[in-house]
């Protein structure tokens, strides 16, 4: 059948044209197109990779930041805690000191009072003694003023003493 018979002329031209076409397109179209496609793919790939790396770096930076922040926060907490401790200690010390001082003052006061008391007592003793002596003197003096009675007494005493 006509349709199924290859034509020599057409075959000749087809071979020629298709050969030229493959050669030409290979050299002037496919090679530059495919190479720039590849180049673009590489560019995109490297850009993606870089983005990925940047993201990882960012994540790392962020974690570093967090770490630093956490450290700073810990530092601050520690400082606050230390300060509080110091304050507490200072207050406690002051209190203790005050107590000691108070006690000492009280003790001193007590001692002073004791001393005063002792001085007072000794003074009183002294005064009492002198007072007693005075009284005794006055009493003796009055007793001695009556000479006859004295002589009587002495004579009684002597008489008593003779009996012994």
């Amino acid at each position, binding site marked *: 059948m*006509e*349709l*199924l*018979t*290859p*034509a*020599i*002329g*057409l*075959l*000749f*031209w*087809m*071979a020629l*044209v*298709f050969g*030229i*076409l*493959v050669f*030409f*397109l*290979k050299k*002037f*179209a*496919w*090679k*530059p*197109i*495919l190479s*720039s*496609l590849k*180049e*673009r793919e590489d*560019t995109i790939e490297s850009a993606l990779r870089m983005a990925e790396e940047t993201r990882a770096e960012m994540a790392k930076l962020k974690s570093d930041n967090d770490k630093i922040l956490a450290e700073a926060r810990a530092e601050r907490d520690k400082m606050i805690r230390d300060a509080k401790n110091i304050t507490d200690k200072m207050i406690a010390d002051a209190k203790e000191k005050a107590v000691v001082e108070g006690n000492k003052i009280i003790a001193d006061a007590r001692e002073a009072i004791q001393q005063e008391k002792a001085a007072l007592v000794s003074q009183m003793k002294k005064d009492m003694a002198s007072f007693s002596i005075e009284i005794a003197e006055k009493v003796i003096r009055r007793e001695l003023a009556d000479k006859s009675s004295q002589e009587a007494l002495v004579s009684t005493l002597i008489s008593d003493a003779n009996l012994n």
Partner: protein
Amino acid sequence: MNSLLIDRIIIENMLRKITTKLLLVLSLSLFSINFASAQEGHEAHPENHEATAHEEEKFDIGQMIMHHIADSHEWEFAHGLTLPLPVILYTKQYGLEVFSSKRFAEGNGVYNGYINNHEHIHRLNPQGGLDEEVHVWDLSITKNVASMLLSAVILIVLMSTVAKSFAKNRGKAPKGIQSFIEPIIFFIRDEVVIPNVGPKYEKYLPYLLTLFFFILVNNLLGLIPGGANLTGNITITLFLAVITFIITHINANKHYWLHLVKPEGVPVAMLPLMWVVEIAGVFMKPMSLTIRLFANITAGHIIILSLLGLIFIFKSFAVGGVVTLFTLFMNAIELLVAFLQAFIFTLLSSMYIGSAIEEHHEADHGH
């Protein structure tokens, strides 16, 4: 490329072939009926058959279809609007002859001792009969050759533009026509060639890309009213299939040949039978490539032409309206087929090449 898609394509192809066969039978029966009646007035005036047909107001659909899908020495866009093409003839006895196909039209199919009998050119002997001793090598720029040259020019201009645009937009997003062609190139490379040819694909990519775009552009040119039916011509499809065959077998590795001679797991007694099957398989591949493209494109043209022919047979507005809708529908399908067939031809070529250069032994040879 997943096997599901291939299965779908194969099923779709089978369906197409069945419809194609039905329509071929239908149109050929019409053709033969009309051919018989047309033959009487035909012998005396080889070339003016159509003229007489028109004069007699008799419409011969088979003749019309054959005229449209066959090659021709002139390019008839519409009745009366014909582009004359150069006729190039070579005979051992008379040497090279170049003249315009207009000379044949003027001389009623005869010029300078040559006769154009249904696009077959013969030498006339002095008595006016055919000179059987002279073999005429017909290297004319026929309608198909002209269309092929046009497609080559289109491809070269298009692809150089795209290449230039690539050079200009180096490292940037595609622009203009480049953004239309680029995804197709990507698709052919990443979905068709790389999965089927394998890691050594770069060597075959230029051929396969050219193949795809050549078939695609010519399929589309063939759909334009008045266009030539180049990819529906068996010479062209045979040529392309043979090129794929040659590339496959030049590059075929040891495993491929070994598989042909001694397929694995086959009992020795079965080997002669396997040789027959394998060798038949080797030649079936280019055959199927040839016939698939040829039949698909030609069938599409025949369907559209048959539908349009109905208008001239029935000469009714109602039929005209229905047929127009049908033709529109068929044209849409043909548009799809134009892409599909270019894709399938490239896909199968890639698979054949891939199966021949595959390193592993468990190669599936695609049959």
